[in-house]
């Protein structure tokens, strides 16, 4: 029996709340420790203020294969500033009330988790109040040990589906995922991108296969794309655009303000237009 206030319930409640309010969940992504631990903490508080419904926190890895230049550079900056797995967890714990009820999920690469041990990492995640982890280099076939270690602590492990994933495989991935299914909107790596691929068919397929919320990410940068996706998905992830927004600022004060205001804009984009809201098959 999972306690009703457990990580999985928190994640699920966040999606339900958004759905009741007629909007897709907004999931901003930032890299822990970018550009340094102090400013990073304020940036995370800023995305929380800016309307995050869930928060995806990158735990930096030296060789982030699934990430494009924006997040790869952010990871390099964070590592140069001394960020680590323990440091990222400490950030979340220290932010405490400033994150409110927003569920936080880690995003990192398998080697980081393996090095610290799956079991003990899951334990530290739970102890520091994180709700789960996304590991982009662990596909379904290799995901057993990861999913069972995190499930033991009530944590969620969302799984990724990509445009190259065949339908039968997409269904199996959706059934193995917990928390949400992470639909990658285009082939390639993370990064800002002008357009969004045709993913409506894939979302509809997944809807039929699972009641788990469906979230779209990779290459979502403009509020226009967010609006378009909010009509189809239960949540939208924006990462590279926020990382770039912070990196482009002249100083940390400006970065914090710019990220907060960008988040407010993107979060507003998650509000579904009445005309399309009727098309939704909500996950509840």
């Amino acid at each position, binding site marked *: 029996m999972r306690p009703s206030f457990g990580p999985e319930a928190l994640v699920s409640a966040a999606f339900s709340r958004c759905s009741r309010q007629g909007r897709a969940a907004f999931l901003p992504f930032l890299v822990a420790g970018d550009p340094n631990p102090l400013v990073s903490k304020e940036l995370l508080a800023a995305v929380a203020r800016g309307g995050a419904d869930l928060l995806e926190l990158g735990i930096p890895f030296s060789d982030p294969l699934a990430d494009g230049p924006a997040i790869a550079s952010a990871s390099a900056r964070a590592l140069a500033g001394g960020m680590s797995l323990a440091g990222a967890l400490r950030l979340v714990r220290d932010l405490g009330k400033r994150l409110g009820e927003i569920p936080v999920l880690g995003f990192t690469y398998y080697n980081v988790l*393996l090095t610290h041990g799956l079991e003990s990492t899951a334990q530290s995640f739970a102890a520091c109040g994180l709700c789960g982890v996304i590991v982009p280099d662990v596909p379904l076939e290799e995901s057993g040990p990861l999913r069972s270690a995190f499930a033991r602590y009530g944590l969620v492990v969302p799984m990724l589906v990509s445009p190259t994933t065949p339908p039968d495989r997409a269904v199996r991935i959706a059934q193995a995922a917990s928390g949400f299914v992470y639909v990658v909107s285009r082939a390639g790596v993370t990064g800002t991108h002008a357009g969004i691929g045709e993913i409506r068919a894939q979302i509809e397929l997944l809807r039929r296969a699972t009641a788990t919320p469906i979230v779209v990410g990779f290459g979502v940068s403009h509020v226009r794309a967010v609006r378009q996706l909010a009509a189809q998905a239960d949540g939208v992830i924006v990462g590279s655009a926020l990382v770039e927004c912070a990196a482009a600022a002249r100083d940390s004060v400006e970065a914090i303000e710019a990220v907060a205001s960008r988040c407010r804009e993107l979060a507003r984009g998650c509000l579904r237009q009445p005309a399309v809201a009727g098309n939704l098959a909500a996950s509840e």
Partner: protein
Amino acid sequence: MNGHSSRGYFGEFGGRFVPEVLVEPLRALETAMDDAFGDPAFWEEYRLVLRDYVGRPTPLTALRNLDAESSGPRLVLKREDCNHTGAHKILNALGQGLLAKRMNKVRLIAETGAGQHGVATATAGALLRLPVEVYMGSADMERQALNVYLMRLLGATVKAVDAGARTLKDATNEAFRDYAATAEHTAYVVGSAVGAHPYPTLVRGFARTIGDEARAQCLEQFGRLPEHVVACVGGGSNAIGAFAAFLEDQQVGLWGVEAGGVGLDRIGDHAASLSAGSIGVLHGARTFVLMDEEGQIGATHSVSAGLDYPGVGPEHAHLKSSGRVRYGAVSDDEALDAFCDLARAEGIVPALESAHAIAFSRKIRQKLDPEALVLVICSGRGDKDVARLALGAPALR
């Protein structure tokens, strides 16, 4: 075969730890590989290209003069330096190029460290009329300017990678990212027996030409199998290709030689993943990796750019664990000594990578029966290293 083998495991090593977007392309590659490997017509095409274009078989040369004054057996070199383009890498590049053609791919990409694999892929692209883009760390481009020029001469585009230490690992990351977005029409020609399944098996399939030829040549020229086979290991393709032919011959001792750099005590001083690394996941495979206690991939150092890589092919990790192959390391200085000594004693200038295997063989030979047959894989020629050495770093004796 164990329960893992269908997912591309060698014992507990290997696997396919890649973003979901790459799973389907790698599955398609695996199917095409199985199909091609089972098709005699594919192998016949490959064999003819090797004979008429690459110039195979390469010779087996018993050394006459090196260390002739001291006790111990003479070394016998498998002369991969005699390949067209100067190294064994062409075996793999042409094999994967032919497979790409068979899969109707219209573009080749590759990563390269020293530039040898880039040159080999550019060559294969020219021959097979496929455009080639090669990712190369900008630090490596400075160190290996000659190969950058060669690749461009052969019609390839060289894409500079400015991330990280700007070397092989960073170039590999970029090539992976390109492939993630372009796999539908692009073939990623991986340069060593590393990475996600099916690459370690695919690369071994072509590299084992080295071992199969050498084994037959030993029987023909010496009337017996060698007692020992020695090869250098970076990613480990020439070594796995050599070992593959001898794995079942339990009486043949197999030795892999890593880059010991300037010492094994500190991360960043060497590139000896098997000798001094720990088990992790890098570039899609579970294997021995050089990393810090946080799981961040470490810096590497070797005088030889081709061995300068923080991981190693997963089959080597398995062969180390099972004890079938023994792995050791030699230092930059030992390799440089072997490089100079072989040139002067035999008129053969080996690649600095190959010089590691030669240096190690010299170290063990004194403990061996003088009648033993020691086969050393000379994986490539040293022309590419001469410019850099001639510029003064480090000085020749």
